[in-house]
C-alpha cells in the first residue's frame, strides 16, 4: 500500500480519515496537527516579546506522550525568543519504573539542551508511592493518591519557576476518556472547569488567578499515533507500564471507546469537538468568578488554594503518616 502523498510504503492507516501515510508524511502530519492546535488554542500569548518572554513548563514523565510533546515543542519553539521552556519531572518513588523513565528525561533534555528539573515525593513529602500502595490507609487505588500529589507538585514547581503555562502530553484518547467520564458522571461544573483549566482557547478562557493555566497540545493525536511517532523518530521514550497502574473506571471507558472507534471511526474526534463546544457553554455559565471559586482559601497547612480548611493533599499525607 502506497502513501497517499508519495510512492513510498504506508506505515499507518488513519481509519477516521481514510488516509494512508508513509513514515515521512505521517510524522509531518503529526507535527502539523500539533502546531495547528497550538495556534487554535492561542497558546503563544500575542503580547509575548523577546524582552518579555513567556515561560512554559512542560510536564515530562519520560513516557511516550510527554517525550513527543517536548520534542515537537522544541522543534517548533526552541529558537523562538518569545518563549522560555523548561521540563519538569516528578519522581513518585516507584522503584525501577520511574528510575528508568527519569533517565529517558535526562537524555532527552540533554539532546535538546533544555533546562530540566526533577522533584520527588520523597524529598517534598517524605513518602514513596511504593510504600503508600503497601499501606493504603484510605483504601483507594494507587492512582488516586498519586494524582493528587503529582498535580500539587506540578502546580507548585511550575509556579516557582515562573510558569505562565503548564503543558502536558495528554493525547486524544486521554481527553476523549476524560470527556466521556465527565459526561457519564453528569458533572457539568467539572466540564466547565476542564475548559477554563486546560482545553479552552486562551482567548476564551476565564482568568484563573489561583491556578497556572494548562494546555494539552497533543490532544488531537490518537494515542497510537503518538506511540508510532516516538518509535519512528527514535525518541528516548521509556516504554513500560507503571507497576501500580489501576484506573479501573478509565480502563472501562477506554475499552468502550476502542470498540466504538472500530465500528464508527472518528468517534474520539467527534466526542471532543462536541465536548469542547459544550464545555465552553458550561464555562460561560459556571466558569470564572462563580460562587464556588469565591470560596477558595489557603490551606491552613501548606497554603495552596482549596475549597476546605485543609487541602486534599495535606489530608492524604496526614492519613499516610498515621499508619
Amino acid at each position, binding site marked *: *500500500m502506497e502513501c497517499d502523498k508519495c510512492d513510498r510504503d*504506508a*506505515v499507518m492507516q488513519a481509519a477516521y480519515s481514510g488516509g494512508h501515510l508513509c513514515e515521512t508524511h505521517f510524522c509531518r502530519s503529526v507535527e502539523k496537527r500539533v502546531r495547528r492546535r497550538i495556534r487554535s488554542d492561542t497558546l503563544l500569548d500575542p503580547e509575548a516579546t523577546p524582552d518579555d518572554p513567556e515561560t512554559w513548563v512542560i510536564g515530562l514523565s519520560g513516557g511516550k506522550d510527554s517525550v513527543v510533546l517536548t520534542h515537537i515543542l522544541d522543534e517548533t519553539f526552541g529558537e523562538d525568543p518569545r518563549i522560555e521552556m523548561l521540563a519538569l519531572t516528578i519522581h513518585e518513588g516507584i522503584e525501577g519504573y520511574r528510575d528508568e523513565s527519569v533517565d529517558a528525561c535526562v537524555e532527552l533534555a540533554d539532546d535538546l539542551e533544555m533546562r530540566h528539573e526533577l522533584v520527588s515525593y520523597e524529598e517534598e513529602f517524605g513518602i514513596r508511592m511504593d510504600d503508600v500502595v503497601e499501606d493504603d490507609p484510605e483504601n483507594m487505588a494507587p492512582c488516586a493518591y498519586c494524582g493528587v500529589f503529582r498535580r500539587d507538585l506540578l502546580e507548585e514547581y511550575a509556579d516557582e519557576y515562573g510558569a505562565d503555562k503548564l503543558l502536558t502530553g495528554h493525547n486524544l484518547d486521554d481527553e476523549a476518556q476524560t470527556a466521556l467520564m465527565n459526561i457519564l458522571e453528569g458533572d457539568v461544573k467539572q466540564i466547565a472547569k476542564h475548559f477554563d483549566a486546560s482545553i479552552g482557547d486562551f482567548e476564551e478562557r476565564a482568568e484563573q488567578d489561583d491556578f497556572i493555566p494548562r494546555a494539552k497540545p497533543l490532544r488531537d493525536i490518537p494515542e497510537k499515533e503518538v506511540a508510532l511517532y516516538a518509535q519512528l523518530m527514535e525518541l528516548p521514550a521509556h516504554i513500560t507500564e507503571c507497576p501500580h497502574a489501576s484506573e479501573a473506571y478509565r480502563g472501562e471507558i477506554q475499552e468502550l471507546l476502542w470498540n466504538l472507534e*472500530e465500528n464508527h471511526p472518528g468517534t474520539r474526534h467527534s466526542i471532543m469537538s462536541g465536548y469542547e463546544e459544550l464545555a465552553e457553554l458550561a464555562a460561560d455559565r459556571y466558569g470564572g468568578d462563580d460562587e464556588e471559586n469565591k470560596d477558595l482559601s489557603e490551606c491552613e497547612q501548606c497554603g495552596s488554594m482549596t475549597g476546605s480548611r485543609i487541602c486534599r493533599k495535606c489530608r492524604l499525607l496526614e492519613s499516610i503518616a498515621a499508619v
Partner: protein
Amino acid sequence: MDVTVDVVSETTHEVSIDDGATYADLLSAIDYSPQEVSVLVDGSPVPEDQPVAADTVQVVRLIKGG
C-alpha cells in the same frame, strides 16, 4: 493461511486466517483492538487495513501513561 503472531513480551499465537484477511482481522482473532497495538512486519509498521502478506508478524502493545 497460518500466521505466527508474536505479541512482544507476552505470548505467541498461531492463527489461521482466510485468504485476503487484513492485519485488523488478525488482531481481532487474538482479541486486540487496532487502537491498542501496532503491527510490525520485518520491523516496520504496517497499516492494519491491508491484507496479511507475511507468515510472521509482531504485535507491540501501547503503553499507557508516563
